[in-house]
């Protein structure tokens, strides 16, 4: 098992950096993920393994397994403990907790190994025989490439899977309005731009009409309509949606019973 200098110092430095950057919200999305994954899933366990096992006490595979296993276990049990604190399971609390575990255990590891010159055990890749680049590097690179292609194909296929398009229409009472009012909403989830005709009635009387609501795929429309006082006490307010391609055919229909003063 080989030793490399200052692994714990690097570990501590990274942890401190993560705390600072996370608390400041400075990290960009990708950088944050790249740092956070080992911070949560590897660092605490790795530090604990270093602290509690003797030098050269574990093989490389055991170190890897215990590092990730203990990290996840610490997060799980730590979350249970944090639940009973006033701060709960918030971002800052997690960052401080996990960093404290990693730094604390790292400190113990340094102390047990008698100074800064001692290091954590590091897993080393086994001797791969002749031509490591050809025998190992090229196939691994090719494997990564193939898996990347597979992921891309999978995602693309899922996105472009033929799905039945649909339109959403809804009606709700408008809160905060003294007079009777309703909120109308429309969303186009079809595969093409659609022209809609929308009619709002109350007690059978037309309150308002929209004859040319053009919505592109993914677009939505909303409106709040105050009912005329004469119709405000009428029971049923109804919105009927048709498509311009079939104006006489009811495509969507919603209604709401309005109580005067609500």
């Amino acid at each position, binding site marked *: *098992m080989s030793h490399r200098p200052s692994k714990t110092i690097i570990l501590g430095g990274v942890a401190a950096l993560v705390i600072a950057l996370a608390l400041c919200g400075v990290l960009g999305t990708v950088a*944050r*993920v790249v740092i*956070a994954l080992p*911070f*949560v*899933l590897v660092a605490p366990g790795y530090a*604990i393994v270093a602290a509690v*096992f*003797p030098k050269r*006490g*574990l*093989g490389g*595979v*055991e170190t*890897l*397994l215990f590092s*990730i*296993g*203990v990290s*996840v*276990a*610490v*997060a*799980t049990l730590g*979350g*249970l403990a944090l639940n009973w604190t006033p701060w*709960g*399971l918030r*971002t800052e609390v*997690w*960052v401080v907790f*996990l960093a404290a575990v990693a730094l604390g255990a790292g400190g113990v590891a340094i102390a047990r190994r008698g100074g800064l010159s001692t290091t954590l055990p590091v897993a080393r890749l086994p*001797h*791969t*025989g002749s031509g490591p680049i050809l*025998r190992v590097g090229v*196939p691994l690179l*090719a*494997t990564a490439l*193939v898996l990347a292609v*597979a*992921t891309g*194909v999978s*995602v*693309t*296929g*899922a*996105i472009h899977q033929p799905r039945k398009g*649909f*339109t*959403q*229409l*809804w009606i709700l009472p408008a809160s905060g309005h003294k007079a009777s009012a309703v909120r109308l909403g429309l*969303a186009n*989830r079809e595969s093409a731009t659609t022209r809609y005709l929308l009619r709002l009635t109350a007690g059978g009387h037309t309150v308002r009409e929209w004859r040319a609501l053009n919505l592109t795929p993914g677009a939505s429309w909303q409106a709040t309509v105050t009912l005329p006082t004469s119709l405000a006490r009428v029971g049923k307010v109804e919105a009927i949606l048709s498509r311009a391609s079939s104006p006489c055919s009811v495509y*969507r229909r*919603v*209604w*709401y019973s309005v109580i005067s003063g609500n």
Partner: protein
Amino acid sequence: MSHETQQNSTAVGLGWAPIVSLVGSLGVLLVVLAYTGARLTPGTWWVEPVYWAGLLTIFTPIAARLISTGASRHERIWLVSALGMGLYLVKVLRSPLGFEGHDEFLHYRTVEDILRSGHLFAYNPLLPVSARFPGAEIATSALVRVSGLSIFQAGIAIEAVARLMLVLALYLAYERVSASSRLAGIATLLYMSNPKLIFFDAQFSYESLALPFASLALVALVYRARARAGNSGRFGLTLVALLGLGALVITHHLTSYAFVLLLLLWTAVYFALSSRHRRVVTERMSPAGMAVLGLALTLSWLVYVAPIVIEYLLPQLQGGVTELIGIITGRSTGRQLFHDYAGQVPPIWERLAQIAATALILAGLPAGLYGVWRRYRTNVFALTLAGVALIYPLSLPFRLTQAGSEASDRAAGFLFIGVGFALATFMIGSRPFSASSRKQIALFTALATIVFVGEVIVGLGPSWARLPGPYLVSADARSIEPEGLAAAAWTHSYLGPDNRIATDRVNGLLQGSYGEQYPVAHVNVGLDVAPVFFAPGWGPVQQGIIRQGKIRFLVVDRRLSTGLPMEGLYIDESEPNALQHKTPVAPAALTKFERLIGVNQLYDGGDILIYQIGASAHEP
């Protein structure tokens, strides 16, 4: 403490692992091509053959190399890891955009509640018991908080790590017990043939992380049992075992109970063996202390935090046992084998593969168990694994029952820990085989592949469940569609969270998770809401359900009337004709709400409508 054992002193390095991994990745690509074909051109003839070609390309070359004698320890570790992760990708790349598995939505809700409140144990109406075992959700929420990933992305990462933990832990445990990296590789390979590995134990759920925690504790205990007294690594191993055990107890009920039973069995074997072979027993300490601690922790958690487990598990266990007794006594006919709930029958080759897989395991087990007894008579944990393998045949009759078939399949995730070891011992131990003849390696590779294929079919179910494709009624992953997702997003945005609603099985998952609503059902308030949706009319029964359930909204999916439920249920197991529907829901039953007085049709999404309703709603 030794850290490297080599099967063959002349075999070093990674050997063929990089090339075999590349081949495996091509297998993943083939599976993805099959998925894409199923999505874009459903029903095309080449999809199924390409799917199976992909799975075999992932599994068979790795199996051949692991069964061969030429691979080094490092190569074997690499290969089992590659297989484990390759099979995990088979699940992930089936649904790369979001969760689609039934149980994934249940646990999504718990993560959401933790993120929303910053605390644990909020009531989860989708699966109340899961909120009492929040281990997986705690770890996921930690990753969400620190990384900014979505719940889906963090869940995928957590389960990927869990998969790696499981594979490495089992390999190392097998290796330490047998002192053979070859046997360890084969045993791990065979473990990964269990029917639950590809999907059920890969989905975002509590059992998927609990098994790795159990394996982590197990390998630490196996190592500790063989460490010399005074070895300073013992403290570290004890700590790892404690952390694994503690995390397991708060993560999943059944896995923690099974693990404690395993520790108790191990302890019993230790003391039985020690009393007879005091000086030659391979282990220097028993897991008795850990078994007692595990028992205390699981019971404490059960009594003080999660007593709800009893009412959750007991009916399931009772149902299977009762039905099996009924079959034996002739009072019940049991489940119709090889038929799904919609009455579809798999092709003849799939049925034969399932039978062959089970037959091969049952045929190999006696020889394997005999081999374990011959080679490892004083090896306590080896005998314990043999004891676990012995339970496997006892679990099979439950596959004949409706209530117990799922439990029997799930038990395989635990029992294959012993089955894999016993069968691997058989493979290593047969004298002609260990002469490394190419013919015999090919033969055993073929047999292992048959077991893998048969068990995958058992675990994944019919092809409509294995592959993506167009919408199917009440078909879990095949029913997750933009309409349902959009309706759930709408209720969350416009109605706010925590409204009591009544809806069907799939929309209940979506509304309860993404919508953060409270789908009233038998699992939470003990109410059967099926009459609301199944009856053609509206009367006192329906009004009573609305009143009793305090239901404010109905989410009605008219597609339910277009076919039989593929999973056997439209709503839940309390509905009439559950798992035995012969006719779809009548269309009139789903359109009756339009004519009711006192009902508002707030949302019309075409197939999905949302009604605001009160107990006073009535027919005109």
